């Protein structure tokens, strides 16, 4: 399912200063890894760090249903109740917040409210985050191995839309290099994932 920029995708279910978890309105309807999110009002901004699908009721584990079917789609067609039993959730790392008309990098004074609406950012909102990449260190300090891919995803998608692709990548790479000066391997892994 493709997410349109500016589209509302779900609501906040768990909220920490530095991290939120949201549930999507639609099963399989999460914005991509590394996507920039706007949450609530006044807005907090977060980057999608992880996406997962699971049963709504943890006490009723899933079982395979497609042994005698040809395609995955047929499973959902044959079991319409599934979309009510299953859900998609995602976690975002908070990287900035709106203060009046401007965007500030860092953590907001209060975490987003529960049930705050979560939007996929449009390109105007994303521009503030591609012009200045200093916020990337907030992602790098997260222990999860998925953040590197999230970061690469953000950079790759941003590079596709900025005016000067090479210049942007070099600037981003240098910002990362300053953060990862003691870990050239990790730096190169992220760069490789960004450019391929």
């Amino acid at each position, binding site marked *: 399912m493709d997410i349109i920029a500016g589209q509302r995708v779900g609501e906040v279910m768990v909220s920490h200063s530095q991290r939120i978890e949201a549930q999507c309105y639609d099963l399989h309807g999460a914005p991509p890894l590394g996507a920039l999110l706007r949450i609530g009002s006044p807005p907090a901004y977060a980057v999608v760090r992880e996406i997962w699908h699971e049963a709504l009721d943890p006490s009723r584990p899933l079982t395979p249903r497609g042994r005698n079917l040809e395609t995955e789609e047929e499973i959902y067609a044959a079991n319409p109740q599934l979309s009510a039993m299953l859900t998609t959730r995602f976690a975002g790392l908070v990287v900035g917040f709106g203060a009046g008309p401007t965007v500030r990098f860092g953590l907001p004074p209060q975490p987003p409210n529960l049930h705050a609406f979560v939007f996929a950012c449009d390109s105007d909102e994303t521009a503030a985050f591609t012009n200045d990449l200093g916020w990337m260190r907030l992602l790098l300090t997260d222990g999860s191995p998925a953040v590197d891919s999230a970061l690469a995803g953000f950079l790759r998608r941003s590079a596709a839309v900025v005016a000067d692709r090479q210049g942007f990548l070099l600037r981003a790479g240098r910002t990362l290099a300053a953060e990862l000066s003691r870990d050239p391997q990790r*730096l190169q892994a992220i760069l490789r994932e960004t450019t391929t």
Partner: protein
Amino acid sequence: MVVGGSLSRGLDVRLDGSANASLEDVAVGSFVTVVGRRQRYFAVVTDLELRTVDDSVRHFPPTRSPGGDDFHAEVMAGTLAYGQLSVMPSMTAPLHSDVAGGGTSELAEQAKTIPEHFAPVYAASQADIDAVFRAQGSDAFSLGSPQGMETASIRLDLGTLASRSVGVFGASGSGKTFLARMLLAGLVKEGDAVSLVFDMESEYGWQGQDNDRRRQVKGLKQLFPSRVVTFTLDEESSRRRGVTPDGVVRIGYDEIEPADIEVLRDLLNLSEVAASTAWNLERHYGRSDWLRAFLALSGADVGELANELGVNLAALQTLYRRLSAWSRFGFLADTGEGRSSAGGIIEQLQRGNHVVLEFGQYGRNTAAYVLVSNLLTRRIHETWVRRKELADGGQGDEPRPLVIFIEEAHKFLTPEVASQTIFGSIARELRKYNVTLMIVDQRPSGIDSEVMSQLGTRLSCALNDDRDMNAVLMGARDANQLRGVLARLDSKQQALVFGHAVPMPVVVRPRDYDESFYAEMAIATSAAGSIPVGALAETEAERMQREIDELFPPE
């Protein structure tokens, strides 16, 4: 920008990755300017280094990205890995915001402070160079251009240079002679000091050889016909080269002292015993006659004489054999000639003329070179000492500052004999009597360290030998940092200059010794008004004869 360092060790300057500065554009020895908060610092690059933030970069260097470009290297260069310069700040001048371009209006002085962290560093400009080298107007003597700044020029105050002894060093073929000849030309032009050049290879007086370009270059006499007087030890050779010397120098047998033999002991390959027998001879024959009488003996007589004097026969025979070779020295004459030769030279010097003594064929005989230059200098020095003492006592004028120029100094300023030669004492007494030395040498490690340490200014072209480099730098401030600079000089026509005459060490590419140099020298002579050479000046007839001889060299 400055990222660390200390006054004693020098500053660490990180190359600005974003300004696209490349290590490859900065040569060791280059000039840079550090703009501090209140001061501007002038510094020389003494070392270059590739640094990484973390050692792991060495183990995981950037890989080529699958697209085949150098994206990773580009990202990492200037961030994880960067260039660092070691620079030595030597001079400083206050910053004035009112001077256009933030330049300096005052003269620079020794740096006793260092700039703060993160002060920006720039390549130096001509204005910076001038501030440091106290360019007293553009008429000061221009030695050449600093490293990496073809159009800038380093100006020297030759009066300061000549006020203390000077050493010009460098391996064979590195450009010592060309450099020294320029300095001498500058001294002649300036006109305050006079010089006496013991011209071993006859390359300063009339003309010199440019071996690389296979052509002749003008000597001092050609540049300054009215201010330079040439003498020769070897009229034959002068005539062969079509040069008419202004005078001929002779040395009397009676003027050679046993002490001269001591000085020549190594060169003549004499044992201590053999050399000391000269003193026995002197006692026996008398002070003025010993050498002539000794050399007049036949081989057999030497044995008898040894008996008579009670000295070792073998030693006396060796001395006899070695000194017999001197009978072929055409410049040795019977008596008193040296005194009058020296007198002639002194007279010229006192008139303000510079004197070049060409050795002709005897230049190839180091013993002859040392013997003659030592002997003449002794006499001239005596005169200067006497006149200086008279002047100090209120009688007569101060003698003119005199620069005595010698080559192959390591042959007679070795630790063993430096104390015995007149040059050793001149070096040590500093300028007490208005006499200083300019020594040119390719083996500075052979020179007595005490003499070396008395050299006010040292100019060193490339040297190959570690010991020679250490000797040149001995006693210099910041010798450690300069070592790296000295070791990387071009093999030709590039020199590290430091000491008395320059406010800070500097790598210079001496200017080309060519028409434009001649022209600069020439204007000065006519402007300053020439000093007549007097009786020894070339007459019109002599000049014509010389020119004819040059065109059709006599056989």
